[in-house]
């Protein structure tokens, strides 16, 4: 189910391939087959032509160009000048770059697990058949749709600013930290809160996974006298592990790419693009600053490739690890 992200659909397609092309009893003549195959190829590539054009023009071509820019000094106005690995050494020696890496890793490492835990917890709650289940599911999902908008980022900034609700609530508990969005150390927490607030999308996927767990397993466990907690560890978790894997993969990849919310929640104050004292300077924010504010397209391309490598590594590690903890049903898709 979950590996499906890359593998299953392809194998599924292959498995379906030996399929009768002609009616029973009439073995097709080779010449017919050949002609038919050519026609199918032509039709296939004609239908695919928008995607192929898009892939070459907007994905593969730009990726190659970006790789080239990464080794050049390029400001958009003069031709790119080859400088070898200078962009990469500049990056590694730049304290602001290292800071943006730290901020992003922290955001991914805290925001993603918390969001998924909340999503799973709420999914378990909603998986019980109760009145109003569909209503709650829809209401909890709604933030995932609007969470990426500028509007919500603006509202977020207001709610977490000095003297607003969050600040006042923490004062009730005797914490006088001030508003989060004005504090270089705290602003990132407001971004974590914003991503956790959007737990609805992974929750919906968890719910769908939970629905597919056969009830008999729980009934059998009940008969055997296994407690609820044990049933969760031994039945629920293994059964939904493909869905868990899917959510972990997608949410992690998305978290690495956070931009708009950091740019808007952090922006504004003193003309600083990404938060007070770079507090919300996530990786892509710095990439934007270097590329589009400082016109350093070569350096920004090098940064983008570092991001790609990091995301690819995380993806590879996740796929490698799934052998140990993701359970696919025998003979499943």
């Amino acid at each position: 189910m979950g590996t499906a992200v890359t593998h299953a659909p392809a194998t599924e397609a292959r498995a379906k391939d030996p399929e009768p092309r002609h009616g029973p009893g009439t073995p097709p003549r080779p010449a017919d087959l050949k002609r038919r195959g050519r026609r199918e190829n032509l039709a296939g590539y004609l239908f695919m032509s928008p995607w192929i054009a898009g892939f070459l023009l907007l994905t593969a071509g730009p990726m190659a160009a970006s790789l080239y820019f990464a080794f050049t000094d390029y400001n958009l106005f003069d031709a790119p000048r080859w400088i070898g690995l200078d962009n990469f050494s500049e990056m590694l020696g730049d304290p602001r770059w290292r800071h943006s890496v730290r901020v992003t890793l922290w955001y991914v490492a805290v925001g993603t697990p918390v969001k998924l835990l909340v999503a799973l917890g709420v999914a378990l709650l909603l998986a019980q058949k109760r009145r109003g289940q569909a209503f709650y599911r829809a209401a909890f999902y709604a933030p995932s749709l609007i969470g990426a908008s500028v509007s919500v980022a603006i509202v977020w900034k207001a709610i977490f600013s000095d003297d607003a609700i969050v600040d006042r609530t923490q004062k009730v508990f005797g914490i006088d930290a001030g508003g989060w969005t004005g504090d270089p150390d705290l602003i990132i927490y407001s971004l974590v809160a914003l991503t956790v607030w959007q737990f609805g999308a992974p929750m919906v996927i968890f719910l769908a996974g939970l629905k597919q767990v056969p009830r008999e397993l729980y009934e059998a466990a009940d008969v055997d006298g296994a407690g609820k907690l044990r049933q969760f560890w031994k039945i629920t978790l293994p059964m939904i592990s493909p869905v868990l894997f899917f959510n972990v993969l997608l949410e992690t990849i998305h978290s690495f790419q956070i931009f708009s919310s950091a740019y808007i929640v952090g922006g504004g104050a003193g003309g600083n693009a990404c938060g007070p004292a770079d507090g919300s300077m996530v990786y892509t924010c710095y990439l934007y600053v270097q590329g589009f504010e400082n016109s350093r397209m070569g350096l920004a391309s090098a940064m983008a490739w570092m991001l790609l490598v990091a995301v690819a590594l995380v993806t590879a590690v996740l796929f490698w690890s799934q052998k140990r903890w993701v359970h696919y049903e025998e003979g499943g898709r």
Partner: protein
Amino acid sequence: MTAQAGDITRTPSAKGALRRRLPGSLAWHIGALALLAVILYPVVWVVGGSFKASEDIVGSLDLFPADPIVSNYTGLADGIADISVSTFFFNSLLLAVGSVIGILISCSLTAYAFAKIRFAGRNLLFTLMIGTLLLPYHVLLIPQYVLFRNLDMINTYTPLLLGKYLATEAFFVFLMVQFMRNLPRELDEAARLDGCGHLRIYWSIVLPLCRPALITSAIFTFINSWNDFMGPLIYLNEPGKYTVSLGLKMFVDQEGLANYGGMIAMSLVALLPVLAFFLAFQRYLIDGMATSGLKG
């Protein structure tokens, strides 16, 4: 997990069962409602705040003002930086509708090829397509910008729309492929025997049956396009062409705290189309999400 305890009713008497079930059910509803309150707080806050005077919005803890004012909304009629708010809405709408049309055509054609035509290299292309699903957009950001700049297309809507017509949104291709594969094979096989070509099968058989997947893709595309901030930020530089997202950001930068009420009101108005779509089509959206996770 405590709430689940109410699920098991081993007591034979109905009375006992009721007594055991009730606290569990109550706890469940209290938990769900408490969560709902936290989730909805920002939304209620922005609705209430939009009827307050600017200086009362952040400091005051009352969600709704004692004497509501509407000047935050009426003030929007003045526009932002001499541009009418309706201009931003028109621009956003144009982009969103243009994106929806592009996605529906290009992604369904591509999905049909993957799902229904057996051509050489299909599996390789499918793997490539899935690969783009995981590719961080930022790698393409700069080279695409350079490309469109060289083509003299900065400050036009082409960079924001072209990809939609070239099926670069792999997620929707994937969603439609999954849907098409589950359609009964007999239908298009029968049509083939009757001498129908692929175009005919695509148009008359597969597309009508794919309505749910098409609707899901259309709504997600509309909402994504409406919310998009980075694309317009990079490609548009003339306020008259700004989308709602960019107009809102301009509002914040120019007036900021001075016109907090107007900013909050505008934020809410900007969300309305998305909320309307959500209320009208939430089932399609949630089901679309759910299947993407299960099969994807």
